């Protein structure tokens, strides 16, 4: 399964690049499939409430026909409801593809993945009931195929298909049941979003307003210009060789009709099981880059900043076990089952006492010291600190522009002391390239970086640092021009800037914090 992640990531980056070229990274819909799906669910609930007013369980097709005959509102709201449900499936599938490709389906994120799979199944069933409710030929076909599948289960002795034999009208109770499920399942899915997002400290529920207007407007325009027609009423005593089907919800129909029901069940359950167990198949050992953060209690001041910055609520403050007068009463503790190793806590900790192994602030500073202690470091070029996931294809062109490229797992992991020390070590300037904020694997890396650089959020870039020599920009696949333009502007700016004073490199670490020796055993 993990072997599929690489081609999936390649295809995702290609699609991302194409979408960014057209819409820009701010409105790239592929970065926001989850929030677009949530917005579409809201649209479906609103349009569904309108349709519910006119639906009659005693005369399902006739009531929909009356709606369809209304040229002003009914027809296009029905079409909007239908097309929005299709778009919802597309958005959810793209969302799952993105998370799978970016290896974001395992470990602490497994709950979100498995609940997402269940939510998608609920949407499929809800869509199935919605089409059956219309009771046109497609709805009847879905009902009969579903009944055929259901009859394969040893549940009822009387075949459900007898309801659709045609010797008597389909009872209203059947349509009422469908109506109930069609209303209850999306509401359940909306409630299920709570579980889906429960691991997140600050979930983003909606895409930017411009994207909402764009998606809703496009679907509304489609509904008005090319509304969905209503198929003829279901007739259980005729064989329809073709039905106008919605492939987003009925892609399984040809297989279900062609295969024996038990085999169709095996296929459906195998697919569901496979999707459900992807976290199991794609998990990694929690070492190296996947090691969870740890708190070095000797350095923890109990400031409560890392729990605030952690997007996964993986850090809590607990009473210190062996508190002395000089130490804080509380100390941070990381729950490794919730920590996704994004390293944002490392960037939030002024005394550099927390973070994943080898990515704490101290580790970053130590690496920088190792570099600047080499001969000739005073001739450093402008530094580009890049998110390693943002756009790997942009790194070579950036180097070609004269940048000293350094990678971080997430810009939120970057400790601001590294920026200051880089400048003090002689770098003419430090440019930090983030991923597109809505595509951050650490969720809030660009946001916290900005706050730490410019708004004095702990661990802030010290006021003594000349902000003219520091800049941030987004590096998004498909926007190489944007990456290079930002670099050119930055280098032009720092070239024109006269530095206030020549920094010294006497004790760069001591300028930022009290030196505390690293002891691996104590961590």
């Amino acid at each position, binding site marked *: 399964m993990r072997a599929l992640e690489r081609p999936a990531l390649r295809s995702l980056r290609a699609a991302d690049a194409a979408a960014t*070229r*057209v*819409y*820009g990274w701010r409105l790239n819909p592929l970065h926001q499939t989850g929030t677009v799906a949530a917005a579409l669910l809201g649209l479906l609930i609103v349009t569904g409430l309108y349709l519910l007013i006119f639906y009659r369980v005693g005369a399902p097709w006739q009531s929909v026909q009356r709606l369809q005959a209304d040229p002003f509102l009914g027809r296009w709201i029905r079409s909007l409801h*239908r*097309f929005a449900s*299709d*778009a919802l499936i*597309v958005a959810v599938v793209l969302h799952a593809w993105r998370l799978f490709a970016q290896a974001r389906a395992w470990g602490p994120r497994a709950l979100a993945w498995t609940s997402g799979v269940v939510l998608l199944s609920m949407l499929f069933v809800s869509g199935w009931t919605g089409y059956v409710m219309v009771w046109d030929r497609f709805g009847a*076909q879905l009902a009969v195929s579903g009944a055929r599948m259901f*009859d394969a289960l040893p549940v009822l*002795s*009387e*075949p459900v*298909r*007898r309801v659709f*034999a*045609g*010797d008597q009208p389909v009872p209203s109770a059947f349509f009422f049941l469908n109506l109930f499920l069609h209303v209850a399942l999306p509401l359940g899915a909306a409630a299920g979003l709570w579980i889906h997002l429960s691991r997140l400290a600050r979930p983003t529920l909606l895409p930017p307003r411009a994207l909402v207007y*764009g998606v809703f407007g*496009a*679907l509304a*325009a*489609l509904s008005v210009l*090319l509304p*969905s*027609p209503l198929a003829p009423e279901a007739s*259980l*005593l*005729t*064989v*329809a*060789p*073709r*039905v*106008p*089907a*919605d*492939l*987003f919800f*009925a892609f399984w*129909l*040809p297989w279900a*009709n062609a295969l024996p029901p038990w085999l169709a069940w095996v296929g459906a359950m195998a697919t569901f099981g496979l999707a459900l167990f992807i976290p199991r198949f794609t998990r990694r050992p929690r070492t190296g880059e996947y090691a969870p953060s740890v708190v070095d209690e000797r350095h923890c001041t109990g400031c409560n900043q890392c729990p605030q910055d952690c997007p996964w609520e993986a850090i809590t403050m607990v009473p210190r076990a062996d508190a002395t007068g000089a130490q804080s009463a509380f100390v941070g503790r990381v729950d490794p089952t919730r920590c996704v190793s994004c390293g944002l806590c490392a960037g939030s900790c002024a005394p550099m006492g927390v973070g994943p192994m080898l990515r704490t602030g101290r580790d970053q500073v130590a690496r920088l010291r190792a570099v600047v202690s080499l001969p000739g470091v005073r001739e450093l070029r402008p530094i580009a600190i890049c998110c390693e996931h943002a756009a790997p294809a942009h790194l070579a062109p950036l180097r070609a522009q004269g940048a000293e490229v350094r990678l971080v797992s997430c810009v939120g992991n970057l400790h601001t002391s590294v920026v200051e020390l880089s400048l003090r070590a002689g770098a003419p300037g430090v440019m930090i390239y983030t991923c597109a904020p809505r595509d951050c694997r650490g969720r809030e890396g660009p946001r916290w970086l900005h706050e730490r650089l410019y708004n004095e959020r702990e661990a802030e870039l010290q006021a003594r640092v000349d902000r003219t020599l520091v800049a941030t920009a987004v590096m998004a696949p498909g926007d190489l021009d944007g990456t290079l333009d930002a670099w050119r502007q930055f280098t032009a700016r720092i070239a024109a800037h006269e530095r206030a004073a020549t920094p010294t490199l006497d004790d760069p670490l001591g300028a930022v914090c009290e030196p505390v020796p690293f002891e691996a055993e104590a961590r």
Partner: protein
Amino acid sequence: MSGRWWKRIAGTLVAAVALWLLRAGSLTPLRVGEEQTALLRLSWSARPERIEQCRRLSDAELAERPQHMRLRWECEGRFARYLLSVSVDGRPLTTDTIRGGGLRNDRPMHLFREFALAPGTRHLTMSLRRIDAEARPDSATDAATAAGTAAADRETREGQERRVRRAESLPELVAIDTTLRVAAQRVLLVSYSDVDRRLVLR
């Protein structure tokens, strides 16, 4: 034209193509059956006949039973199985043994079968024949007990219940033997009429 405008045009075009694909996927004609075919559908729910041996209890035996178990006729048996045979133009489509529903086969006999038929004039022969005929069906009779007593009333009620059960159950044989014109894309439905106790073709 500036690059910004080109981007807007490209964005509109991409959105239009995406919407077109969305609509096409939403309204795809899906092949679910053959053009030149019809369907023979058998669908019914009927109670199988109970094959049982009954014995009339004497007054002494009856008196030994608890009050709530005093039935004059004590019966043991099972529900009958039926043989379903369907053939079209002499070609057998199915021959199958049909039992009542439930683990003990004591529930109504539910059936739903479909067979593809070629359109045209077809001779349909179909029968549902009771298999278990060796035992005497419902061997209890309306025996005489002194009229006017509580025991007689109870026995009368038992007799009525047996008659209702018999009337509700499938006869020993129900059959259809007919020639008909089958149109393409039509469903010929064979069901069972509880009232007339026969198979109905429509």
